[in-house]
Structures are given as structure tokens and as C-alpha cells.
């Protein structure tokens, strides 16, 4: 026993070795799973250890499943206690993502479909109005009353648009993580998801080229973002 303990102390596990149990349980992200797979393919000792881990994994599940389930007493006790709780006032401090999710969950599929159709129609109308304004403004550029030069002072509408990007989230990204990221970047989803990519818009002001490049670099470094490309 002493010898074994000494051996344990002498053996410093590698990062990959420590990740093996999560690989067996299938809870590693794609990048780490690939690293472990590659290490297993080239290291027979590691593969032997992984086989032992798979046994442990199977027997841990077996052991837990054999514990059975609680009696109905627990549920009765819980709801008796809930009945004894003071009446709940609707909370206003409920977190926003859950409220949004709850709102949509309460709508029937038919209501949801109608709402989506109306939303699409409103977008089309809006696009039509903006388009008509643009066509009209091609012939008459904006002039200030105080400036009397022969050159009209024009404003390029394209530059005033806040930056947009196509973003692909990591496969294990959670809704809560994505919501937090959108909050942090003051971003909103303006299109998607095509080929797993979402079109995001950032803030409500136009940015310079360098500023946009910095934003993309920052975004690309986010754990839950696997790809971020600026788009017009």
C-alpha cells in the first residue's frame, strides 16, 4: 500500500489524462474531445487507462440507477410545505431571458405563427418605405440652410449603419450564454440562422474600420463564439 501511495505521489497527471473521465461521459467541447482522441490514438498507456475509466463510468451509472427512487412521501411533504408558504405576488425582478422565453412558451403555435407572419409583413413594409425614401433622395441630396457653397452637403446613409457581423456560436453554447453575450455587446440578432450563422448588429451607431476590426477580434476570443466575420 505504501509503495502504491508513493507511486501516486510521484505521478503527476497530464492535462489530457485528467480530461479522460469527461471524454468518457461525452461532456467535453469539440476541441478538447479532438485533443483527447488524438492522444488516445498515439498513446497505448493512455488507452489502457481510458478502458478502465469506461468501466468506472458504466459501474457508477449502474450503482446510481440501483438506488431506486424516493417514495411519494417526499412530494406530499413538499407540496404541503408549499401550501403553507405565503401567497406569491408576480415578481417584476424576474430575469429578462426567462421572461422572454416564458412569454413565447405561453403562446400557442398558431398565435406564434400569426405573430411571425405579421412581424415579417411589418419588416417588408418598413423595407419598402426605406427603399422609396432612398430612391427619392438620390435626386435631391440634403442641404443645410446655413451653408451656401455650390457643393451640397450629403450624408452617406450606408456609413451611418451600426456594424454587423456573421457569427457562429460554439455547439455547446447555451441560450443563457448567448443572451449574456448579446447584452455585453449591446447586440441584437437581425438575421439567421443560415448554415448555423447568425447576423448580429452591434449598438446603434456607426463605427470606423479599426473599431470594427477590434470588435471582431474581441468577439472571436469569446469562448462561445467559433466564428465572427464583419459584414456590410
Amino acid at each position: 500500500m505504501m509503495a502504491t501511495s508513493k507511486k501516486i505521489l510521484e505521478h503527476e497527471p497530464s492535462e489530457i489524462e485528467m480530461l479522460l473521465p469527461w471524454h468518457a461521459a461525452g461532456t467535453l467541447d469539440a476541441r478538447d474531445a479532438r485533443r483527447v482522441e488524438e492522444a488516445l490514438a498515439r498513446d497505448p498507456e493512455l488507452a489502457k487507462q481510458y478502458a478502465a475509466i469506461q468501466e468506472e463510468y458504466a459501474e457508477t451509472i449502474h450503482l446510481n440507477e440501483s438506488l431506486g427512487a424516493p417514495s411519494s412521501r417526499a412530494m406530499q411533504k413538499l407540496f404541503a410545505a408549499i401550501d403553507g408558504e405565503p401567497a406569491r405576488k408576480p415578481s417584476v425582478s424576474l430575469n429578462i431571458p426567462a421572461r422572454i422565453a416564458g412569454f413565447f412558451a405561453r403562446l400557442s403555435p398558431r398565435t406564434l405563427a400569426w405573430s411571425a407572419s405579421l412581424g415579417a409583413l411589418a419588416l417588408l413594409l418598413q423595407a419598402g418605405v426605406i427603399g422609396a425614401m432612398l430612391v427619392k433622395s438620390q435626386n435631391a441630396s440634403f442641404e443645410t440652410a446655413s451653408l451656401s457653397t455650390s457643393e451640397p452637403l450629403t450624408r452617406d446613409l450606408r456609413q451611418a449603419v451600426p456594424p454587423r457581423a456573421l457569427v457562429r456560436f460554439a455547439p455547446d453554447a447555451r441560450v443563457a450564454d448567448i443572451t449574456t453575450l448579446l447584452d455585453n455587446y449591446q447586440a441584437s440578432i437581425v438575421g439567421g440562422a443560415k448554415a448555423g450563422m447568425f447576423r448580429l448588429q452591434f449598438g446603434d451607431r456607426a463605427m470606423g474600420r479599426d473599431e470594427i476590426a477590434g470588435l471582431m477580434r474581441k468577439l472571436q476570443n469569446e469562448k462561445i463564439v467559433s466564428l465572427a466575420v464583419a459584414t456590410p
Partner: protein
Amino acid sequence: MSATQAASDNVLIARIAQGDRLAMQVLYGRHHVRVFRFGFRLVRDEQVAEDLISEVFLDVWRQAGKFEGRSAVSTWLLAITRFKALSALRRRKDLELDDEAANAIEDMSDDPEVAVQKKDTSEALRECLTALSPDHREIVDLVYYHEKSVEEVAEIVGIPENTVKTRLFYARKKLADLLKAAGVERGWP
């Protein structure tokens, strides 16, 4: 757990925060068995584990409005269960029993007859998993049975992610020692 279920758990919590009993029943139905098993493995007493469940879900009823959705609901439930289980253990003060159980298995190495009569590997493994210390047992269960990631285990147990990894590694080493003492050789370490 799928992303869809995690999202719908969040919806249930939002409804519970508004006092929706039906949502509470659904959440209970979905998670109570795993909560019970996690608690049972920690406190090793069926009655205490059953009492834990009602305490855990009553906390959920009371605290649902404060849940921020930063972690999965199942992770939050296990963290509450762990806290309640440790409080119950402190009340019972029977942590010493775990050391006794581990020592009992280690002593088997002195008895050659036990080694000869060794049970099959699966049964021995389950016995040794039961004989691990509470710290080791919970981390093994969280990773293998509750399928929690490194980050989630760190959140439930309240330790850094690197400690999660090393603790599981040494839990597995301890398991290998216990198996060896019970006469089971697996070729690792």
C-alpha cells in the same frame, strides 16, 4: 441534458417564480430522482435523502425569482442538494464512518482468502465506489452519472476548475487502490 430541456427548465423556473404550482410539479417530476440519488450517495440514509428532496425543491420554490439562468437548472439543483446534504451530515456527524468503510476494504489486502474469493470486477468496482470518501464520491457521481462538465462541477462543489480535474484524478487513483486491495487488477495504474 439537451439544450431544449435546459431552456424549458428555465421557463419552468420563470413560471415557478410567479407561483405556478403546475410548473413546480413538472420540474419536480423531471429532476427529483437524480436529486434524490445525489443526496442519497452523500448522506447514505434513504429517509434523510427523501427529506432533502423536499427541502431542495422548497428552496427552489422560494428562490426561483432570484435564479439568473447563468447555469443550468440541474446544476443549480445539485448545488442546493449538496449544501443541504452537507448540513445534514454535519448534524449527524457520521463522517468518520466513511473512513472506517475505506479502512475495512484496505484491510482485505491482508487476507489472502478474500483475494481468492474475489467477486467479479463489476461488483467489486461498485463496492469500492461506495467506499470512497464523500469528496471523492461526489465528484465521481457528478462527472459520470450527472454528466456535469468541469465548469459545472466547479460551480456545484465550489472549487476551482483545476482542483476539479485533480480531485477526480486522485479519486480514481484511490479507487484503483481499493480495487487492488480487494484483489482486482485492472492494468491501471
